[in-house]
């Protein structure tokens, strides 16, 4: 059984909670005690309906204010797949939460109210999914029951969205007309929309092809930990533990180590269960190498003819996540793969309006929830790939030097 991670974003009005509630309920991932608790609280508040948003609004502040503040993770499984939902609030002030939810998603689900059509929030969700390079974008045109299941409405919204999406980098775009409330096209095909020839939402989630979304071409393993058992039976054992972030490695492969630039061959790839014949993303393994060379945490194992970019001057799209604004000259800590380095902001090329995609080249700061293109200089070279080629070796986080909080998230671009 495969794992699919998907992100959703939205507000109370567009039926997102109803839809998630239905997916969870129909796949038996909501339990009676949870449902009773939600019904009890809904009744206490005087609601005449069961507010399924209460299932995911887990924090006291969220329940008191009736809003979703933070990313909530929900889980369900069907016989075909296991699903992890990153459920995020949709308002512009929660852009950073949407970015967070999308960072690990295989698919982003955008909900559109059929009566309203494409609104600012729709464009923002789609843009953030494309910025984070989520491989699959699913647009659910919801509340079709309220527009008499009219194909013309659906077609018009699809056309408008497609025109907008052409300005983005969207690899796979799918539209499904649904009614989350009535259940049309959610789990099974609706009989109310004979004109729709596609699959139900759940069927799409179960079958969308994700196996080729990982990078299986560029071999990359950032070293996390050096295994040196101080035991008689493993006296000379030295293994390099890490997660494969791209490509495939096999015993006998010639490998290049960065930053030393030395080459050697893979003597063996070990796991707890024993040696394996190949390792690929996202496996966690331990590599043994033929030659005894000095390798430590933060080093990168790759192939002599397939190396990442090595550089200290970085170009990146950055989403800012804290109150104190980013500006040119700021110093901060940067984590990329398994290493922390110090970074300085050299330039802010432009700030991007997440609603209109307008580039403001006169911007001098990035404030909370803003996205912009920046140039950074780091103290030691990073071994990276452009984010669009590899989401693991192409991403970094920024932390404030004083408070240590995570202040920004970056996606690396090809160097100038």
């Amino acid at each position: 059984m495969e794992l699919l991670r998907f992100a959703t974003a939205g507000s109370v009005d567009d039926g997102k909670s109803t839809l998630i509630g239905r997916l969870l309920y129909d796949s038996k991932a909501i339990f009676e005690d949870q449902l009773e608790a939600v019904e009890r609280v809904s009744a206490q508040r005087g609601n005449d309906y069961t507010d399924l948003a209460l299932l995911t609004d887990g924090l006291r502040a969220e329940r008191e204010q009736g809003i979703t503040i933070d990313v909530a993770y929900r889980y369900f499984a069907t016989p075909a797949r296991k699903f992890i939902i990153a459920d995020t609030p949709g308002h512009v002030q929660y852009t950073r939460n949407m970015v967070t939810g999308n960072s690990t998603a295989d698919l982003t689900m955008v909900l559109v109210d059929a009566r309203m059509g494409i609104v600012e929030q729709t464009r923002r969700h789609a843009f953030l999914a494309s910025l984070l390079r989520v491989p699959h974008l699913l647009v659910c045109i919801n509340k079709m029951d309220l527009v008499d299941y009219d194909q013309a409405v659906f077609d018009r919204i699809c056309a408008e969205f497609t025109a907008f999406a052409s300005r983005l980098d969207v690899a796979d775009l799918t539209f499904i007309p649904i009614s989350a409330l009535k259940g049309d096209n959610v789990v099974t095909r609706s009989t109310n929309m004979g004109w729709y020839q596609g699959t139900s939402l759940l069927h799409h989630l179960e079958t969308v092809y994700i196996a080729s979304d990982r990078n299986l071409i560029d071999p990359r393993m950032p070293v996390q930990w050096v295994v040196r058992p101080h035991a008689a039976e493993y006296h000379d054992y030295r293994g390099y533990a890490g997660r494969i972030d791209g490509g495939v490695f096999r015993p006998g492969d010639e490998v290049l180590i960065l930053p030393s630039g030395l080459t050697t061959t893979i003597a063996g790839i070990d796991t707890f269960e024993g040696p394996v014949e190949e390792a690929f993303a996202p496996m966690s393994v331990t590599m043994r190498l033929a030659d005894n060379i000095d390798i430590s945490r933060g080093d990168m194992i790759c192939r002599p003819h397939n190396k990442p970019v090595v550089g200290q001057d970085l170009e990146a799209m950055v989403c800012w996540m804290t109150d104190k604004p980013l500006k040119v000259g700021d110093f901060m800590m940067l984590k990329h793969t398994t290493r922390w380095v110090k970074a300085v902001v050299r330039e802010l090329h432009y700030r991007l309006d997440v609603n209109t995609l307008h580039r403001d080249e006169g911007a001098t700061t990035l404030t909370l929830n803003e996205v912009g293109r920046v140039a950074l200089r780091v103290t030691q070279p990073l071994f990276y790939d452009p984010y669009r080629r590899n989401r693991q070796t192409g991403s970094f986080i920024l932390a404030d030097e004083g408070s240590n909080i995570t202040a920004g998230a970056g996606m690396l671009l090809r160097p100038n």
Partner: protein
Amino acid sequence: METSQSGAVQGQYQLSHLRAIEAQSIHIIREVAAEFERPVLLFSGGKDSVIMLRLAQKAFAPGRIPFPVMHIDTGHNFPEVLEFRDRMVADLGATLVVASVQESIDAGRSTEESGSDPSRNRLQTRTLLDAITDQKFDAVFGGARRDEEKARAKERVYSFRDEFGQWDPKNQRPELWSLYNGRHQGGEHIRVFPISDWTELDVWQYIGEENLDLPTIYYSHQREVFVRDGMLISTGPFVHPRADEEVFKETVRYRTVGDMTCTGAVESSASTVEEIIIEVAASRLTERGATRADDRVSEAAMEDRKREGYF
């Protein structure tokens, strides 16, 4: 193109969902071991901590687990669980730290709750935080899962704790990709939840696949119980049924393992992992909802305890 050279054919190179979340958990455990001075792994003897131990073993094999294991001992344990804890730790050759709630009470750091059969659930927090301070632990691994409880569904994998051990749910660090930020100052620490993305069903499937040993109380057995707060509570040295609480024999098992005073059993004849997987898949109650009095105090009982520094 390296594609043909490496043989990366479409459709191959698939990990099952269990192996994918296992790889993710191992990655987290290694990050923590590498970036922190003094990590410790909390071990209750429950199924989630058994999985944590196995993942830690896998992360560093053939080396040993490079951090100690700590049990917060309420003194109200199921004897089967204590016996199991000692056997597991001995088999692994791990170092066990026991932090005792009774000792915290004796030292005047905690006060036993009043009433008959007081629960020591809440008292664990003081004992845990004192142990973290005394031993200067800066990263504390726990086996909590996001599917367990709605406050936990919002908690980060690396969950920051201030110098008082408090969790601030409104002020959590964003957590993107698999880039974890464990930066902290002296006196602060991070709780780490490597199996955040596992569900109860994943846990049981993994126990089955890995053939993991568990305390016997997870499997169906006969036990003297009585009904309290709608739950089947076992009789024992710390639990005394009142006159109106009728004791009877029932075929039960436990879905979670906690303090004897607040952990309920469920009626069950499931005596193998396979039977439990079927039972869990068909269950209409969450594991904590079915069996934990500690979560029933209020709508936000877990969040409130976590703010104070609970697991």
